[in-house]
C-alpha cells in the first residue's frame, strides 16, 4: 500500500506546524540564547528592548508560574537560565511581540553581561573532574580479568565518533492557543506529545488535563524532537498562560542548530582478546559520552550503547562501562540509533585493529564470531538470531568473493584511485530499554455511516507509521483504505503516550489498534450472528461484505454498522497494548529488555581519489531481516534513508565546537549533510524473509533505526581504500572520515 500522505506531499498540501492558519491576535516569540557556554549572568537589561513599539513582554526565569525545569530523566535543565549559563545558546529570555520582525529586532537590544567560567567540551576531561550526569554503569558477562590469559592475541585502542546535527528540514517550533477555562492547546513539532504536555504543565504549574498537545506530522524528527521540542512549547505556552493570547515560535535554522543538542560524540577505550582461531574471548570498553550541559536523554542513550556494545557478536567475557559526562555543550539527545551506533563503531574498530595487527581480514573475525540462536547477550537475553543467515546470504547473492577480486584487480591497475570494501553486520534490539515505556493506546471510532477514525499515540514523521496503522484497521475490518482516516496525535484523545522513538512506534500503536479493531469486530460479528441467526464463528467480514460460511449473506459493512448502531452496540474502542515478556533488572544489569532483535548485513564499496582525498560510495548491498514486511515500499525507503544518514554521520558530517563551546558548524554552509551526490551510486536491498514468531506487528519487524548502522561500513571501506594506497598509514579510529582525513591518511608518514 502506498503512503497515505504521498498525494498531499506532492501537491504541497500536507500541513506542518508553520502552515497552521493563525488566529487573529497571534503574537510571536523568539528566544535569546546565551552567547557564552559557561558563566554567571551579572546583568540582564531589557529596557531598550522593551521600549520598542510592538513589544508585548519579555519573559525571564522570574516570570515562570510553575517550576523552571524541563529535565525529563533528571531534573537538571532550567527552561530559562537562572543566573547560571551552562551552554552557548541556552535560552535566557523569551521576547514576545506583535510581529516576528519586532521580536527579532528586540533580541539585539537586550544587554546581557555574563562573567565567564571555565568551559569543558571534552568528555574525558569532564569525567576526570567528576562531572558525571549519573553514576557510571557496567554490563558484564563471564570474567574478562580471567579471560585475557587464555587469549592468543590481546589489543587495546581508542575509538572516537563525533556527533551529528539532526537537520530535520522543518525546524523546531510550537504554537500555543488559549481555549476557555485556562486550557491551552499546543501545536508542537514533537515526537513526544506527552513529553511536551508534561514539560508545559511543570513550567506553568497546571494539571495535565489543562494542556492539549496536538501533532499532525513532523518535517523530520530523527530523535531531535523526542525531548527537545519541549523548550519551545513550554516558552510559547508560558507566554499564552500569562498573556491569554496565541503565541507562536518557529525557529530559524541557525537558532535551531545553535540551541539544540545533537547525536552524542563519544570517546572510548577498548581492549579485545582473541584465540588463535580468531574467536573473540574477551572484550572490554569504557565509554565517555559527551552528554552536554544537562541529562536530557543521555542516560538512556548510554544504556543502549552498553546494550549494543558487542553488536551482533557472541563474546563469552564482556565488561563494558559507560560514563555520561557533563560538558558545556547544548544537551545532546536522541538521534536515530540512540547510542547503539556509537557502541557498534567501537567493537568494529576493535575487530579491525585485531585483524590488521594479526594480518587477517576483518571479515574473517566478524564471520566466525556472529551470534546464533541460543547465545546469551551480555545483558542476559537469549538471542533468536538471524545474524549468520543475513551474512551468508549477503556474501552469496552479491558475490562478495568476486567483488573482492574486482576491487583487488582495480587497486592493482590504478594508482590514483583506490577502492575499499567492508562488511557491516548489525543487530539492533527493539523496545524502549526502559521497560515501563513499552505501551500504547489506540482509539478507534466506527461512525454510523461506516467510516472509521483511528487515533493513536504515534507521530508521523516520514516513517510511514500512519499508513501502517491504517493497514492494521483495514486488514481487521477488511475495509478499503478510503473508509479509514488516521487522526492527528492528540493528548486529549490519547493520554500518556510514549514518544515515537526506539523504532517501536508501529509495533506498539499498531498492536493497540489491532486490539481495538478486533474488539469492535467481535461485537459486529455478534450483531450479524443475531440478525442472520447464524453462529458468530461462521461469520466473516471480507471486502466490506458479511459472509457466513464463506457465502454472501446480503449484509455488507455499511448495513452491519448501521444495524449495530440501531441496536445500541458500542462502535468505539480504546485499545491498550503493553509489550509482553520484556523486563530488565538495573541492579543486576540483566534481563530480557527487547521484544526482539533486527539483524542485517551490508556490503559497502567505495572509491577514493588519491590526489584529492575525495570519495564516492559505489554501492551498499544489504540483506536485511524484515521479518514479514507489511509494507515493503515504506520499509525499503527506511533502509535507503537510514543508509544515507548513517553514511553522512560516518563521512561528511563534521560537527565542530571551538574550545569556548561555540558551534562553528552552525549553518548548512559549514555543516555538510548528504546531498544527492553523496548517495551511494547503487543501493541494493534483499529481504531476509523470516517466519519466526516475534512481537512485531503482523511479524513485520521494526525498521526505523537498524539500517542507520549500515553506514558504519562506509567508514571502514574508506579506511581500507586508504590502506590500499598507503599500507603503512597509521589511521586513528576517529569518525567521521572526511575527505580531509582521507587525504591526511593517504600521505601519512610519506612526507
Amino acid at each position, binding site marked *: 500500500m*502506498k*503512503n497515505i*500522505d*504521498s*498525494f*498531499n*506531499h*506532492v*501537491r*504541497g*498540501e*500536507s*500541513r*506542518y506546524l*508553520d*502552515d497552521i492558519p493563525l488566529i487573529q491576535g497571534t503574537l510571536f516569540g523568539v528566544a535569546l540564547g546565551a552567547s557564552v557556554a559557561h558563566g554567571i549572568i551579572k546583568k540582564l537589561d531589557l529596557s531598550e528592548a522593551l521600549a520598542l513599539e510592538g513589544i508585548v513582554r519579555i519573559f525571564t526565569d522570574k516570570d515562570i508560574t510553575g517550576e523552571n525545569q524541563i529535565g525529563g530523566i533528571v531534573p537538571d535543565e532550567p527552561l530559562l537560565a537562572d543566573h547560571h549559563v551552562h551552554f552557548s545558546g541556552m535560552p535566557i529570555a523569551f521576547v514576545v511581540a506583535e510581529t516576528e520582525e519586532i521580536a527579532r529586532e528586540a533580541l539585539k537590544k537586550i544587554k546581557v553581561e555574563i562573567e565567564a567560567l571555565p568551559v569543558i567540551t571534552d568528555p574525558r576531561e569532564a569525567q576526570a573532574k567528576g562531572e558525571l550526569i549519573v553514576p557510571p554503569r557496567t554490563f558484564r558477562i563471564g570474567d574478562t580479568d580471567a579471560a585475557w590469559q587464555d587469549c592468543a592475541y590481546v589489543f587495546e585502542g581508542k575509538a572516537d565518533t563525533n556527533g551529528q546535527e*539532526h*537537520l*530535520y*528540514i*522543518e*525546524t523546531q517550533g510550537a504554537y500555543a492557543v488559549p481555549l476557555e477555562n485556562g486550557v491551552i492547546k499546543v501545536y508542537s513539532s514533537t515526537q513526544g506529545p506527552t513529553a511536551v504536555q508534561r514539560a508545559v504543565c511543570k513550567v506553568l504549574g497546571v494539571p495535565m488535563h489543562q494542556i492539549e498537545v496536538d501533532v499532525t*506530522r*513532523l*518535517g*523530520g*524528527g*530523527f530523535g531531535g524532537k523526542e525531548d527537545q521540542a519541549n523548550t519551545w512549547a513550554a516558552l510559547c505556552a508560558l507566554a499564552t498562560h500569562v498573556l491569554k493570547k496565541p503565541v507562536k515560535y*518557529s525557529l*530559524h*535554522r541557525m537558532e535551531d542548530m545553535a540551541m539544540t543538542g545533537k547525536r552524542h560524540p563519544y570517546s572510548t577505550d577498548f581492549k579485545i582478546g582473541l584465540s588463535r582461531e580468531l574467536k573473540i574471548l574477551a572484550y572490554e570498553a569504557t565509554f565517555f559520552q559527551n552528554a552536554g550541559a544537562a541529562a536530557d536523554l543521555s542516560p538512556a542513550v548510554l544504556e543502549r550503547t552498553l546494550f549494543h556494545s558487542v553488536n551482533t557478536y557472541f563474546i563469552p567475557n564482556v565488561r563494558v562501562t559507560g560514563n555520561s559526562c557533563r560538558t558545556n555543550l547544548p544537551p545532546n539527545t536522541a538521534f536515530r540509533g540512540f547510542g547503539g551506533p556509537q557502541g557498534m563503531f567501537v567493537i568494529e574498530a576493535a575487530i579491525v585493529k585485531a585483524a590488521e595487527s594479526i594480518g587477517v581480514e576483518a571479515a574473517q573475525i566478524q564471520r566466525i564470531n556472529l551470534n546464533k540462536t541460543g547465545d546469551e547477550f551480555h545483558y542476559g537475553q537469549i538471542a533468536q538470531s538471524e545474524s549468520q543467515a543475513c551474512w551468508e546470504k549477503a556474501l552469496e547473492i552479491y558475490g562478495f568473493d568476486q567483488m573482492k577480486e574486482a576491487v583487488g584487480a582495480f587497486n592493482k591497475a590504478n594508482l590514483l584511485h583506490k577502492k575499499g570494501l567492508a562488511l557491516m553486520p548489525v543487530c539492533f534490539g527493539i523496545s524502549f530499554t526502559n521497560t515501563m515505556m513499552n505501551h500504547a493506546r489506540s482509539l478507534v471510532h466506527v461512525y454510523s455511516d461506516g467510516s472509521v477514525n483511528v487515533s493513536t499515540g504515534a507521530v508521523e*514523521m*516520514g*516513517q*510511514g507509521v500512519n499508513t501502517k496503522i491504517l493497514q492494521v484497521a483495514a486488514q481487521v475490518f477488511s475495509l478499503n483504505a478510503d473508509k479509514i482516516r488516521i487522526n492527528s496525535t492528540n493528548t486529549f484523545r490519547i493520554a500518556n503516550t510514549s514518544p515515537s522513538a526506539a523504532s517501536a512506534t508501529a509495533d506498539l500503536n499498531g498492536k493497540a489498534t489491532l486490539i481495538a479493531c478486533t474488539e469492535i469486530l467481535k461485537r459486529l460479528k455478534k450483531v450479524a450472528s443475531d440478525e442472520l441467526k447464524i453462529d458468530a464463528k461462521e461469520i466473516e467480514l471480507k471486502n466490506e461484505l458479511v459472509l457466513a460460511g464463506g457465502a454472501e449473506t446480503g449484509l455488507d459493512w455499511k448495513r452491519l454498522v448501521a444495524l449495530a448502531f440501531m441496536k445500541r452496540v458500542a462502535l468505539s474502542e480504546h485499545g491498550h497494548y503493553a509489550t509482553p515478556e520484556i523486563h530488565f533488572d538495573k541492579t543486576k544489569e540483566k534481563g530480557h529488555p527487547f521484544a526482539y532483535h533486527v539483524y542485517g548485513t551490508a556490503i559497502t564499496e567505495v572509491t577514493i581519489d588519491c590526489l584529492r582525498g575525495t570519495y564516492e560510495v559505489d554501492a551498499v548491498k544489504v540483506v536485511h531481516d524484515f521479518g514479514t514486511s507489511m509494507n515493503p*515500499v*515504506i520499509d525499503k*525507503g*527506511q533502509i*535507503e*534513508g*537510514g*543508509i*544515507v*544518514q548513517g553514511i553522512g554521520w560516518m563521512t561528511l558530517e563534521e560537527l565542530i565546537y571551538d574550545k569556548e563551546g561555540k558551534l562553528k558548524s552552525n*549553518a*548548512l*554552509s559549514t555543516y555538510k*549533510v*548528504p*546531498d*544527492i*551526490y553523496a*548517495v*551511494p*551510486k547503487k*543501493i541494493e536491498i534483499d529481504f531476509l524473509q523470516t517466519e519466526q514468531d516475534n512481537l512485531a506487528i503482523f511479524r513485520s519487524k521494526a525498521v526505523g533505526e537498524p539500517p542507520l548502522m549500515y553506514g558504519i561500513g562506509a567508514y571502514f571501506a574508506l579506511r581500507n581504500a586508504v590502506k590500499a594506497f598507503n599500507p603503512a598509514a597509521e589511521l586513528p579510529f576517529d569518525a567521521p572520515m572526511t575527505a580531509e582525513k582521507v587525504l591526511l591518511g593517504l600521505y601519512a608518514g610519506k612526507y
Partner: protein
Amino acid sequence: MAKYSLSINGKKFSIEAEPDTPLLWVIRDYVGLKGTKFGCGMALCGACTVHLDGEPIRSCSTPVSTLKAANRITTIEGISANTDHAIQKAWIEAQVPQCGYCQSGQIMSAVALLKSNPNPNDEDIDAAMSGNICRCGTYPRIRKAIHRAADLIKESGNTTGK
C-alpha cells in the same frame, strides 16, 4: 513599505511589503500558499524552491523588490491542477516522499530540469538536484522518479509534463 504587483500561478496579486521581504514570505504569508517551505533562509537547502519564468530559484533569498509584474512565479500549487504533472505521478509511483517537507522544493527543481533537459542521465539529475537537501535521504528514489517522469512525458508526447 512599497507596493508590488506579482503574478503567482497565473493570478495577479497586489501586495504591500518592505522591499527586502523575501519572496518566500510573500508567497506564504501574504498570498497564503503554504506549499513552499522555509528550511534555512540562506539558499542552502532548496526547500523554498519556486520557478521564476520557468527557472528554479530560492524564494527565501529573493527580495520581493527584485521582481517585476511581468515575471511569472510558479509554486508547487501551480504546476498542475489535478496532480497530473509527470513529476507528481512519478513521485507517487516511486513513493519518493518520507516526511515530505522538502518535497515541494525537490519537485520544483525536478520539473525545471525536465523542461530544460527532457532526457537527463544520472549526472544531469545530480547536478540539477544537488541544491535540494532531503534529510530523510530519499535521493535514490528522486533519481528513479525523474527517469520515470521523463519516460512518462515521452510516452504521452506532451512536453509540458501535464
